[in-house]
């Protein structure tokens, strides 16, 4: 996998999530990008069951189990600021066996679905982030296929991002910063999605607490 940047596109003023996604995809099509199927990235959250906490004496940790349609036979499991395990899909079966120790927070299953666009060496995925039935935001993933070292191609990626995201272009992802010359891997993309999903979950909570004041 090439170096990838995952970011959030804020919803345009006065428009819905779907309309903003349409604006973005139209821009991409005008640039000359070709539609190439769909994609889906999902994330389930597990937390250590109360029964295990007592004997371990540590605060409950959140574990994220994610899937990416780009790697259909894999499953990614990660802790925030912790290691990211890449495993095959039997890991989901193991999580069922671990039901007594790790409880799934069913309500917080979050996913992003959308279209894949190929533009020369760039693969762009624009997705609608949903939690249950409601759309919560927009994710934009851009991968530059030929390069696997982040520091070598960040400026090129940035230029491309600016061409269709304009003022909403993100800064360099945190995963790039930690290891300058390390080979980029799919686990780094999943960490970026986890951070994006967490940000979106928090944003929605902010909106919900404002409502009573209106």
């Amino acid at each position, binding site marked *: 996998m090439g170096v990838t940047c995952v970011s959030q596109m804020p919803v345009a003023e006065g428009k819905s999530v779907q309309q903003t996604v349409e604006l973005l995809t139209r821009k991409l099509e005008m640039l000359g990008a070709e539609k190439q199927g769909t994609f889906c990235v999902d994330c389930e959250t597990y937390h*250590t*069951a109360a*029964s*295990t906490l*007592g*004997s*371990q004496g*540590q605060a409950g*940790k959140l*574990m994220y189990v994610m899937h990416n349609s780009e790697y259909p036979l894999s499953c990614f*499991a990660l*802790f925030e600021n*912790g*290691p*990211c*395990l*890449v*495993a*095959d899909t*039997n*890991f*989901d*079966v*193991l999580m*069922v*066996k*671990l*039901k*007594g*120790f*790790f409880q799934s927070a069913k309500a917080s299953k979050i996913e992003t679905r959308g279209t894949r666009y190929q533009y020369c060496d760039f693969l762009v995925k624009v997705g609608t982030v949903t939690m249950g039935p409601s759309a919560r935001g927009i994710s934009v993933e851009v991968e530059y296929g030929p390069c696997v070292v982040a520091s070598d191609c960040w400026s090129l990626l940035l230029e491309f991002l600016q061409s269709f995201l304009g003022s909403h272009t993100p800064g360099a992802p945190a995963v790039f910063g930690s290891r300058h010359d390390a080979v980029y891997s799919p*686990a780094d993309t999943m960490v970026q999605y986890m951070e994006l999903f967490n940000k979106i979950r928090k944003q929605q909570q902010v909106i919900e607490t404002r409502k009573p004041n209106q």
Partner: protein
Amino acid sequence: MEAPPVTMMPVTGGTINMMEYLLQGSVLDHSLESLIHRLRGLCDNMEPETFVDHEMVFLLKGQQASPFVLRARRSLDRTGAPWHLRYLGQPEMGDKNRHALVRNCVDIATSENLTDFLMEMGFRMDHEFVARGHLFRKGIMKIVVYKVFRILVPGNTENTEALSLSYLVELSVVAPAGQDVVSDDMRNFAEQLKPLVHLEKIDPKRLM
């Protein structure tokens, strides 16, 4: 807490339950060559395969009486091979006529940071060992003849000592739940290895 017992149901929650059928026995070191010779004749024609594996057993203790056990295994002689994580359920009790030990198993290939990840989940390593031996196949049956080595200094797989003067012989099949005919085939194969080695259904609980 162990997972709820897996019965004859082949599918639970959308995934197929895989069961491991197992027969075990052992041979003294001096009988190894004749056993290998017979296995080479009986099993599928392939280059003799040897292996050196390092296995670590992790436990997750909860408030329940029995901890959750996971086995992490990696190859010491094949670079680039993925790590292997294995869950084995309790042996299914029931049919006394069933010739092999049957237990639910889940096999997962993972990246190299498996041990760090398991520690983060709350697992703690209970014990580790090195297994060195030979691998044979006959159809879906797998036959392994290996010696267990104790690791003297935790984490150091170079410095090991043999646990006994014998080799462990295991005949196993991983198949979807409900296919008991597999154990008949295993028994028939085991008959052909007598009297060099007697492969039996050994209930781990009886040893404790």
